[in-house]
């Protein structure tokens, strides 16, 4: 499959939501897999993918839900794994891998998805401001 990525207007990495926002609760998450959520930003609503790895050093990740290779909103539905030491999600359409930590695509150096800081506050999932 040779899909080329739509190059994004450069989002800065770990761009800050205006304030801390509650996204959903822990029970909405699916262990070792992803779900999608809406995030309100100053530039409008944005779709993000939340991944939950209970028992791992870092349990929660938030990364752009939009797949630049297929141009579809599908990243939350990819398979989570680790490749050469990095925790990644594989795009369900054309199978490129994105590092959950910083959004870097392993197959194409020039592609990097935006990521956000997320954490649990009690039973809720908060995206940090």
């Amino acid at each position, binding site marked *: 499959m040779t899909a080329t990525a739509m190059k994004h207007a450069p989002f800065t990495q770990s761009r800050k939501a205006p304030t801390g926002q509650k996204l959903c609760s822990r029970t909405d998450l699916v262990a070792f897999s992803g779900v999608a959520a809406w995030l309100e930003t100053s530039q409008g609503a944005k779709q993000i993918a939340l991944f939950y790895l209970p028992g791992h050093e870092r349990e929660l990740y938030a990364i752009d839900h939009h797949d630049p290779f297929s141009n579809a909103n599908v990243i939350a539905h990819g398979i989570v*794994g680790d490749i050469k030491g990095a925790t990644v999600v594989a795009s369900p359409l054309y199978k490129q*891998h994105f590092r959950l930590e910083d959004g870097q695509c392993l197959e194409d150096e020039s592609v990097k998805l935006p990521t956000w800081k997320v954490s649990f506050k009690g039973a809720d999932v908060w995206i940090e401001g």
Partner: protein
Amino acid sequence: MSTTSKRNVVIIGNGMVGHHLVEQLVENGALAQMNVTVFGEERHRAYDRVHLSEYFKGRDAEALALCDADYYASHGVTFNSSEAVVSIDRVEKTVSTERGHYAYDHLVLATGSYPFVPPIPGNDREGCLVYRTLDDLDAIRDAAQSAATGVVVGGGLLGLEAANALRGLNLETAVIEFAPRLMPMQVDAEGGELLREKIEALGVQVLTERATQRIEDGEASRHRMVFQDDKILETDLIVFSAGIRPRDQLARECGLEVGERGGVVINDQCQTSDPAILAIGEVALWSKSIFGLVAPGYQMAKTALSTLTGGDTSFAGADMSTKLKLLGVDVGSIGDAHGNQNPGARMFRYLDPLTQIYRKMVVSSDGKKLLGAMLVGDNSVYDTLLQYYANGIELPKEPASLILPQSGAAPALGPDALPETAMICSCHNVTKASICAAIDAGASDLGAVKSDTRASTGCGGCASLLKSVVDHELAARGVAVDKSICEHFQHTRQELYDIVRVEGIKTFSELIEKHGASGTHHLGCDICKPAVGSILASCFNEPITDAAHIPLQDTNDTFMANMQKNGTYSVVPRIAGGEITPDKLVVLGQVAQKYGLYSKITGGQRIDLFGARLEDLPDIWGELIAAGFETGHAYGKSLRTVKSCVGSTWCRYGVQDSVGMAIKLENRYKGLRAPHKIKFGVSGCTRECAEAQSKDIGIIATENGWNLYVCGNGGMRPRHAELFATDLDDEALYRTIDRFLMFYVRTADRLQRTSVWRENLEGGLNYLKEVILDDSLGMGKELERQMQTVVDNYQCEWAGAISDPDKLKRFRSYVNDSRPNPSIIMTSERGQLRPA
């Protein structure tokens, strides 16, 4: 027609070698310079004579044919079947048949040979037959219907093959040989004795040193054979297989030079004494030798191509080494097997009367070179010995070690010891050098090397040698022949399967905990997780929607629908056998209307509804399940559809209820998760309207039951399914498919269709038959049990999901908002919605 500039080439004989020449002409673009006309005396177009005996096992004339029916016409070659050439006029340069005269510029004789029938009084009685053509086999089958006993005259290679065929036709069978032993050309006295024991053990009577004096009316049977000592043998049917003779009569009559004992004399360019006339195949005599095998014939065809097109390839003789399985007994013969062509040669012999194995090596007087070898009962060392012989490789210090029993595997000659010129596949003339060249040009696995070089696609005898050469060469180039599935497991899929089954491991986390490679975070990846998910499902068939299994699934399996390119999903309910009630059809239409779904009939005889939004899937399925539908597994690597024709219920040709059988099969195997998708087809008669032979499992009704075909494929690399078993009753059919599918599930690589699996299976179709039909590994019952577990644990995944609120939570596009995915935009085309 502007034929004036083109030369007329006439080929007499459309046997294996004559056909190969046409193929060569086509492939090399030679048809641009010539008009080719082929005359075949038989009514069939060229077929695989080497595998003629499979005709009795259900491979029909069409399946034995060497090319498609329209091959000649589509390449502009004129082919006249059932038209024998009766004379050649070398002065006028014409050939004549009963229908007319035809001019030639070049003539090729590819008339093959005929079976020699000894001049015994009575040899022309009814029921005295030969074994060479399809028509001969039809005659034998007809005669066998009213016969109880059969005799084969001639205990050579073909005689034993004929004896096997008679046995297969349920005749009490005897073989009569003039010489003191069977296969006198290939084996010596010891080998012959061993062969006799083995063949008698199969219930075939062996009579040696018998010269038949006459054949006359019998008392208890149709014929009575009277031998030199006045002893007699009565039988209903006689097949003569006393050697072959070149069909050189046309050549003799037009004055071409022929050998003392027959055969049209040719030079290294395959030209006869008249340079405008070539001869190839079994009719040709080169350097006083006739070559009664197909590989040298193909070499001659290549040489003829070169001669006809002004090339400089020449024929330089051919090795007559052979390896065969006759009546289930291995026999191998290499070079000077008797040691009578090399004065001073030394013999090494090994005879094991218990396991009935005989091996003999003929070695040069200095002990360094292998000159010949003879094997009876076990051919496992054949490949190695052939390489020593063919490449003149120096023998080990103790040559005997090559034929003595080893504690481990046979002492294979490592592929690195073979020179570049070593012939690996003699059918297609593929050397080690050409294999290396294919690898260097990018072929990165066995399958690719096979399709690039055609190696091992002829008789298949070189399969294991080819594999070891390819593995070795890949390794030498640093292409890791590491079979690990990914960085998380240092195991192949098959090994993982065995671990899961033997240890009863039921989750991915337990498997990676116990058997994962060190140095990873034990999260797995998109390679191993779906593979393990599939293995767990094949073994235990727990719902893939269970919490422990969800993270393993590809998106399609997670949402039990196929994700389309715009992020929407398609919905495909099961329509077993393609049979659907009008009521259900109405429901499908209503659901599609209600949810705005694009509707299309699939190639698998069901209906695909496209464009469903993730959050609508549960409601859609709720309505479908209420109407009696269940999931069609279109998203899974699992059984897809069983396509059927309408069968005996409606069709005037049908001999069985193909729809009924298709529904039973689809309901039995639905939900079976496998390394890749599986498709079936069931046809109600040999007209094959369901195209079953292009499926993984194809079933064709016969008068007596069902014929089973396996490992076919459509798609990118079409492959005809191969006949696997004939005339099965319903129960035997289920049992055989149970075993076959489970064996595939256990041993295939991930994402390997049955066709590719079969092509890479060492030992090929015969091995598969041994495992499945003869239960050679003793695992038949276990395979059946495993399949029964899968069948018993089947539940519709969608029915399970919509009744479980926790599972339903997954089908929200967003966890914190119910607004639909805004990037899904549709437009309309031909009255339906489609992605914008």
